[in-house]
Each structure stands twice: as structure tokens, then as C-alpha cells.
């Protein structure tokens, strides 16, 4: 039995042209959406074709992908940090046939570079997780169907990164995206399984898991040690359920998604920033989550119309101000938008700089 062998050395996976020009790339161009051209100091050229992927792939699809890479790319390929597929060729004349082959064999779109919407980073949802407040793949599919044009065409002022996480754990790292969609519970985990409590959970860990100290010890009439929720303190974060299976929080009517906007990760021009709340709660409406889709689309379209060239969504909003964002999108501003968590203070406007 082999253990601790670690991943295979990436060097074994690199195409020849990359081995040769490793660390010697000089510049790149985006020839068109999904097609990058990198030129090395030695004058070598590499064309990269970026292909949208559902991330969840059947192995037979992976084999189809391999077939294409074998045919065009000497048996090499890569995936991106946003789960797209990248095929790389050195010969410009292969670019077009390669794209055709992708279209015919996979039916996956080419795009996602530059001022496009790239793939939506997302998580497991109802496909494989125990804590989701919404699905991931379904929401993503519904949104990308609607925003497809923005993946295959450069129609935006700047890149727009959408992420989705099916619960507050935020595995999708939505917490720095231009648009973040996050599953939200809105009911306290009050259906406590007193029978199994002590078998499944530790009381101290469970108490400690709650950021608002909403969980207190309780002994049932028949003497079982368990816990109860102080409901008005609960902010439905679900952290208790993560550590204690006896406290289910999912609720068919209470679960839904919130939308956050204007985050970014790169340091380009402005520092990274968190997205901020646009819509506090939209109900789950499978299979196509129409309210979520249209809320996202509305934001994208308002942004596309009003921002300056090169301006990320959050930079645009920060420049024109949140009152303008709410006015242009028509999203109602409520007391839920006013922060009341630990950093709330820094969000209150301490200036008369106002558009009146």
C-alpha cells in the first residue's frame, strides 16, 4: 500500500511548448472571447482555447475531452481555477478546427476570457451535501443559460465573476465575487432531535458553535440532556448543524438565497473587497429559480449599461454610491441591508457626502 506519495509532479503534465518557455512568456493577447495568444521571449506562440464546463462531468465526457486533447494538443490540457477547460495549441491553423471539434463533440461553449462572465464557481448543493439551503448546480445552470451571451461575447465593462454557495459555509468562496449567491436558512434549528442528541452531539461544542449564544442547555421532562434555541437570537447561520446532526436547520419554505454584489479578489486598480447585500432573501423555486435568475440578470444589465469601460461591478457601485445602485436596479433598501454584525459601525455613513 502506497501512502503519502503526493500529487504527480506537474512537470510531467506540461506540454512541450510550455516546458520550453516556462517562465519566459512575454505577453498575451485575447484574440476573441475564449481564445488567448501567449508569446514567449523566444517568439514561441501558444493559443489557449477556454471552454465552459458544468464542472460535474461524467467520465465518458472526460474521455471525450481527452480525445480532443489527443487529436489537437499532443495529449495535454488543463483546467482553470474557475473550472473551465483549456486546450492549448501552438499552431494557429488548428484553432478554428479545434473550436469546431469542441462544439461538435462536447457542445460546450468557448469564452469566459477578458470582459466576459466566466464560469460560476459553485458547490455541491443537493447533489452531495448535508447542509445546503439551496441547490448549486441547478441555480448555476439556470443563470448561465440566461447569461450565456455574456460568456461567449465580451459585452461587459470588465470581467464579472459570479459564485454560488449553497450555505453560509460558502465553499464557493462567494465572499469576494462580483455577484455572490448564497443559500440562506431563515428558520431556527428548533426541531431538535432530543432522542439522538447525546449520541450525535457534544453539548459544549454545540453551545460554542453558535456565534450569537442562541443555544442553551435543556433537560427534557424524562431527563434527557439536550439543547434549546433562543429563537430571537438565532441568525440562521447553520453552524450548529455543522457540528451537531441533531439540529436540522433546512426548511422547505424558509430556505432560499441571498444575493451579494460588488466584491472582487484581484488587486487590480482597487484592493480586494467583499460583496455587499443586494437581496436578502429570494425563495427556492426549482428547477429554474426564475426570481434569482432575473435578479442577477437585472444587476448585470444595469451594470453593463452604466459602468465605465474597465470598471468592475463593485468599483462602479463604490464610485456612484449605493443609493444610486439601489435606485437604478429598483431593489428595495430595507433595514436588513443595514449591517448589525460585528463590523457594522464602519458601514454607517459618517459624512454629509450625499447625492440629494
Amino acid at each position, binding site marked *: 500500500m502506497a501512502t503519502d506519495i503526493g500529487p504527480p509532479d506537474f512537470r510531467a503534465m506540461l506540454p512541450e511548448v510550455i516546458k520550453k518557455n516556462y517562465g519566459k512568456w512575454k505577453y498575451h493577447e485575447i484574440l476573441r472571447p475564449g481564445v488567448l495568444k501567449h508569446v514567449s521571449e523566444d517568439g514561441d506562440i501558444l493559443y489557449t482555447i477556454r471552454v465552459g464546463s458544468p464542472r460535474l462531468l461524467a467520465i465518458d465526457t472526460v474521455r471525450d475531452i481527452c480525445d480532443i486533447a489527443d487529436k489537437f494538443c499532443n495529449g495535454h490540457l488543463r483546467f482553470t481555477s474557475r473550472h473551465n477547460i483549456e486546450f492549448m495549441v501552438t499552431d494557429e491553423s488548428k484553432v478554428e478546427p479545434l473550436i469546431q471539434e469542441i462544439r461538435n463533440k462536447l457542445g460546450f461553449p468557448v469564452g469566459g476570457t477578458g470582459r466576459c462572465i466566466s464560469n460560476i464557481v459553485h458547490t455541491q448543493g443537493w447533489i452531495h451535501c448535508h447542509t445546503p439551503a439551496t441547490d448549486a448546480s441547478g441555480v448555476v445552470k439556470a443563470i448561465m443559460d440566461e447569461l450565456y451571451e455574456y460568456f461567449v461575447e465580451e459585452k461587459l465593462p470588465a470581467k464579472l465573476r459570479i459564485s454560488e454557495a449553497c450555505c453560509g459555509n460558502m465553499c464557493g468562496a462567494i465572499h469576494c465575487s462580483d455577484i455572490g449567491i448564497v443559500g440562506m436558512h431563515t428558520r431556527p434549528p428548533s426541531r431538535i432531535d432530543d432522542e439522538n442528541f447525546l449520541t450525535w452531539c457534544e453539548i459544549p461544542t454545540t453551545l460554542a458553535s453558535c456565534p450569537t449564544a442562541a443555544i442553551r442547555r435543556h433537560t427534557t421532562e424524562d431527563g434527557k440532556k439536550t439543547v434549546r434555541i433562543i429563537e430571537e437570537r438565532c441568525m440562521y447561520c447553520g453552524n450548529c448543524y455543522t457540528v451537531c446532526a441533531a439540529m436540522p436547520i433546512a426548511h422547505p419554505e424558509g430556505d432560499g438565497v441571498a444575493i451579494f454584489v460588488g466584491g472582487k479578489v484581484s488587486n487590480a486598480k482597487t484592493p480586494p473587497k467583499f460583496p455587499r447585500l443586494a437581496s436578502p432573501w429570494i425563495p427556492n423555486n426549482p428547477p429554474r429559480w426564475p426570481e434569482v435568475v432575473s435578479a442577477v440578470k437585472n444587476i448585470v444589465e444595469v451594470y453593463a449599461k452604466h459602468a465605465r469601460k474597465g470598471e468592475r461591478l463593485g468599483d462602479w457601485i463604490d464610485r456612484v454610491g449605493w443609493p444610486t445602485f439601489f435606485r437604478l436596479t429598483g431593489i428595495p433598501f430595507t433595514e436588513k441591508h443595514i449591517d448589525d454584525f*460585528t463590523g457594522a459601525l464602519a458601514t454607517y455613513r459618517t459624512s454629509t457626502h450625499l447625492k440629494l
Partner: protein
Amino acid sequence: MVEKGKTPMLDELERGPWPSFVREIKRAGRKKEAPNDLLKQLELSYKDKVTHWKHGGVVGVRGYGGGVIGRYSDSPEEFPNIAAFHTFRVNQPSGWFYTTKALRQICDIWERFGSGLTNFHGSTGDLILLGAPSENIQPCFDALTEEAGFDLGGSASVLRTPSACVGPARCEYACIDTLDLCNDITHTFQDYIHRPHWGYKFKIKISGCPNDCVAAIARADLPIVGTWRGALRIDQDAVREYVNNGFDIENEVVRQCPTEALEWDANLKELRLRAEECVRCMHCINMMPKALRPGVEKGATILIGGKAPLVKGARLGWVLIPFMKLEPPYTELKDLLERIWDWWDEHAMTRERVAELIERLGMAKFLKAIGIEPCPEMVWQPRTNAFIF
């Protein structure tokens, strides 16, 4: 295979231009039964609007404390083929480069032992093999390591699978060898990845430049972001070419520089840089990659504390070391990591990420413990309050 019409809501998601995960599940369902039960259970979730997976469940491979996520259906009678449906986190090669040979090997193994469903990739960066019954876990692992030469990544309270941007393999901006560094520390710290030594998870991500294409600052306890010292490099001829081709350098570059470090001399047709003002934001380089490049003295900014929201709110990484040279064998970095882990391990409560610990005990204590001198680069600004201990 699931009959058309039995999963009407999911069938709807086969339509539309974006690639359909439902089609993928159905495709895998042609060879295996698990995907078909998965689809049916998922349809039930779409109807009920709740998950049908039970909480947790510990499964694993011999000698490891993680790498496999246990998962059981809450309706095993109805969906017997996914009664147990565990996933593997397979440690990807740095930068997610593959040969088709390696991929085919993995596919073949997964066809033997699992559902035939995968995620390329998980959000931490692992290659995810989605769904295998309990009895196949060990043999599948054995095949992965012995036949394909792949190992597992991290799960639970371990060092999670590090990841890195494409870096020098294909990006002219790379200031460090992201792929080598990622590979090196992954191999160096295998033990920390495979066996829980601490009270919670720790993540490392490596981006070659401040564009941060693996979102390290948001998602890693230790984000490593390539950067440079001294002036960025300007090829004035190439600048002129941009301008001659109609590029609006004044509005798109000069005025957008966050620190007014640039000036376009329209007469001399020269781009002037006040190097001491540049904060390495990448903007000008991003806009004119043919003309501008990072400086020659390269290294990285080391940050600390990026994480997701639970329990105290999300954290972006904080600057810990403004500039560190990063060359093999990366001793300075590895020593730093060990010092951080020692301190964290000694003081953290269960499920306390390093950022939360630093906040609880104070940055000053942390810096002292790991032997780093305070410097103004660590903060946006000094304290505003007079409550100085």
C-alpha cells in the same frame, strides 16, 4: 438510465445553451446505477426543497485521517444505489495540468470503483470523484496511488490541498514559480495533509501576481501572492505602439493608476513612472501587457488569515510579510509555516481558524510568537483609539 419524464424538473435543466450537469448525470447513468438514483433523489430534493443527504459520516482509507467525505442518503430504501455515496478528494497536479493518459487512468479507476461522476475540480482545487460505496473506498485509493500515481488531498482538520495559478507555465506576469512552490510544499507537508494534527483546517493558495487568479487572499489562511521590488519595466517603443494604435493611455491607464505614479508625456511620447509611488496594483500592466512588465527583483507578499464567513465573518488575508524572496527549497517560508502552525496549534480552540485566533489573542502577540517585527505595511492605518495597552 432514468426514464425521461420520471425527473421532470431535472429534465428541464437539460435544455438551454449552457452545458447541463443533468446530461452528465444521465450519461454516467448509462453505465452505472448510482447516478440514476442520484438523479431521482435530486428530483425529490427539487420537489421537497431540502437535501436528502444525511449529516456527515466518517469513512476513510487506512493510515489517513481525511481525503474522503462520507455521505449517506436519508432514504436508502428508495435510493439503494446511493445509500452510501462517498467522495474522494484527489490532489490535483499543480496548476491543474494533465496528460490525457493520467486523466484516462483516473477515469478507468473511477469506472471500476465509483459512480463515474466527477468534479473538475472542487473549490479547494482537488479533483473530486463523486460517490462510491463504502467497500470500494480502500481499493479505489489503492488503485489511485499505485496505478495512477495520484494521492488524496485534504479534508477535516488538516492542511488542505494547496493550489496555485498557472503561473510561469503560461503567464507572463508570474513573479514566483507558483507551480513548483505548490508542488514542493504539498510534498513537504504530506503528513499534515493526510493526518489531522490540529484543531481545524489550514489552507494555502499561491498566485503568481497581484491579479490573484486563485483568489488566495479570500480563501487561504496563508495567501501567497507574487510581487516585485523596485520599478516595473517599461518598453517605451511598445507603449508608443499602443498609443499609435489609438489606445487612450491617458484615460485608461494614467488616470486609473491608484497612486498617480504614471505620467504620459504626450510630446516625448514617453510613459514616466514615479517608481516609489507604485503599489504594484497590476493595472497598467494588465492594460498594456506588451509594453509593461513587473520589475526584475521578484518575490511574494505573504498574507495571513483569509477565510469564509463562519463563525466570526469572512476575512480577507492580512499582509504579514510585505516581501519575501521565494526560491527552492523555500526554507524561509517553510520555517514560517511551522512557526505559525506551532503557535496556532498551541492556542487555538476547536474549529478556530488562524485568523480568529489572531483576533482573539491580538496581532502583537502573534507577531511576537512567530518572530516577525511589526511594520506599517501590515496595516492600512495605525489605530485611531487611545486605548493602548
